[in-house]
């Protein structure tokens, strides 16, 4: 019989599932789907380089930043989290994790951390690769400006990955239709309410990422022709607080859902 204390079992469970999630999402060919999504902004950069746009630095801010925030982060988060949880719940293997002394949130936290770690290189790639393509296509701006903008975007995307990953964790544990809910919340809700004027805009997760992008990448959070400009984007502190607070809330909801959902 095990003599492990609940605390050591919890810590051990978090570590074990973190490593498992990294193995499942980052190692070998399993990273390809996320990488494919992250590479799509590169296509935009290549086309822009081919047609010879005059100001690649502005183009990076005008097109690549919103594209990665609106689409790459949600999809990379979904690709990293939902298949992991979906497979475990669909075939019932999650039961192995729940019939142990460690509390149910411990393996979930491990999966979440592993998924975030697996997301980070992909999101950095999504920020850097199109930037490098545009940089190489010829630019008048300094390398330092480019580095600041790309590093800033990497930071924004990573924070977005953390927040969106938590949302996906909740839907993955809570519902069998996690993909539909996640698309609705992270893309539908974010795009629609983030693009509408009015107080509902505050509920859009995109708004806070665009607020960070404005400060860290020096780009406008507006994108004429597609979304309504936000006259008062949130500052860095507010954005970080909302995103981290949201991550914690959604993870707690996931932990609660884990207690309530039947494993069949």
């Amino acid at each position, binding site marked *: 019989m095990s003599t492990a204390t609940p605390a050591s079992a919890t810590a051990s469970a978090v570590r074990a599932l973190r490593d498992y999630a990294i193995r499942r999402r980052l190692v070998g060919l399993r990273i390809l789907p996320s990488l494919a999504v992250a590479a799509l902004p590169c296509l935009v950069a290549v*086309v822009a380089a081919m047609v010879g*746009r005059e100001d690649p630095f502005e183009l990076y801010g005008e*097109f690549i930043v919103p594209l990665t925030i609106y*689409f790459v982060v949600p999809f990379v988060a979904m690709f990293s989290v939902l298949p992991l949880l979906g497979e475990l719940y669909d075939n019932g293997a999650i039961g192995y994790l729940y019939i142990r002394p460690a509390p149910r949130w411990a393996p979930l936290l491990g999966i979440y951390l592993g998924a975030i770690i697996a997301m980070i290189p992909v999101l950095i790639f999504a920020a850097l690769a199109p930037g490098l393509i545009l940089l190489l296509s010829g630019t008048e701006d300094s390398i330092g400006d480019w580095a600041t903008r790309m590093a800033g975007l990497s930071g924004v995307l990573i924070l977005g990955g953390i927040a969106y990953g938590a949302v996906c964790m909740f839907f993955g544990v809570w519902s069998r239709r996690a*993909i539909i809910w996640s698309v609705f919340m992270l893309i539908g809700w974010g795009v629609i309410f983030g693009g509408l004027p009015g107080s509902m805009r505050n509920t859009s997760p995109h708004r806070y990422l665009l607020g960070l992008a404005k400060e860290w990448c020096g780009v406008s959070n507006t994108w004429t022709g597609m979304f309504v400009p936000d006259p008062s984007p949130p500052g860095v502190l507010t954005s970080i607080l909302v995103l981290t607070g949201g991550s914690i809330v959604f993870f707690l909801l996931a932990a609660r859902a884990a207690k309530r959902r039947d494993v069949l």
Partner: protein
Amino acid sequence: MAFRAAEYDRFTGPRRKAPVWWPLFTATIRRGWGSKWVRRITFASMMMALTVTTLFYFLYQVIPDWQALLKQFGQATNPGGETFVIDSHAYLGLLRMFVYPVLLPLSLVFGYDLVAADLRSNAFESYFSRSITPLTYLVGRTFAFVSFLMLVTYAPVLWIWTFDVSIGPDGHFSEVAAVPLGMGAALLVTSIMLALMMQAITAVTRSGIWTNLVFVVVFLFSAMLGGILYGLTQNPNWFAVNPLHCIHVFCSLCMGTTERLNRRHMDPTADPSVVATVMIGTIVVCLVILWRSLRRRGVVG
């Protein structure tokens, strides 16, 4: 006891008259119909058809001078704008009502696990050890998939059209005579493309979850991408990377209303020939993916 060579003997006994792919066809329909969401979407499609026919009834029977009223209203709100008439272009709008909210989700919920489930459960070994070949399998599954999609979309719009011409004013038939053919062609090609696309995705991913994710990425991401690429190059043919746009333009092509397309849109549309090429190309690529995936499993057949 005499030994027999351990080799495969092809069945030489009497066979049923039904074609070989028929059991796969019926099994696919049964499997699809088993999904609660497939039934819900089918019901919603029928309800939409019923609502539109009720609307037509009111327009033609209760307020027969509705066109004059609409014209007055249109001139008051949008002077110089087009007057609404029920013609091929109006039917294009109706078709879109059945393509986007019905055909697309239906193809996802009907087919998200179609080939993947067979791959996971090694059902191919059972299929291909019988007289079913990979080609028969593909035909049976695709025919069932396309038939179901057509039934849920084409049947309601055909019902609406029949109702429209039967209660519409004299001469209305000539305005919309080509509509059934155009809608049928548009829905058939779109259904074939979606059915093959779903099956190809599910054959590659081998997982219902991944198929869902890839489907969402293809349709949502490409919509965004098409807009950006057009913004960069000002070349409307980049819109063709978006399957939704392709479906829209192709439907318009089949209905013979392409010349009116750009008048209704802020952005121009991709050239119909480019769209047709993209759609045919998608169908061919999906067929190649499916064929390769099935042939690997079909060594017995």
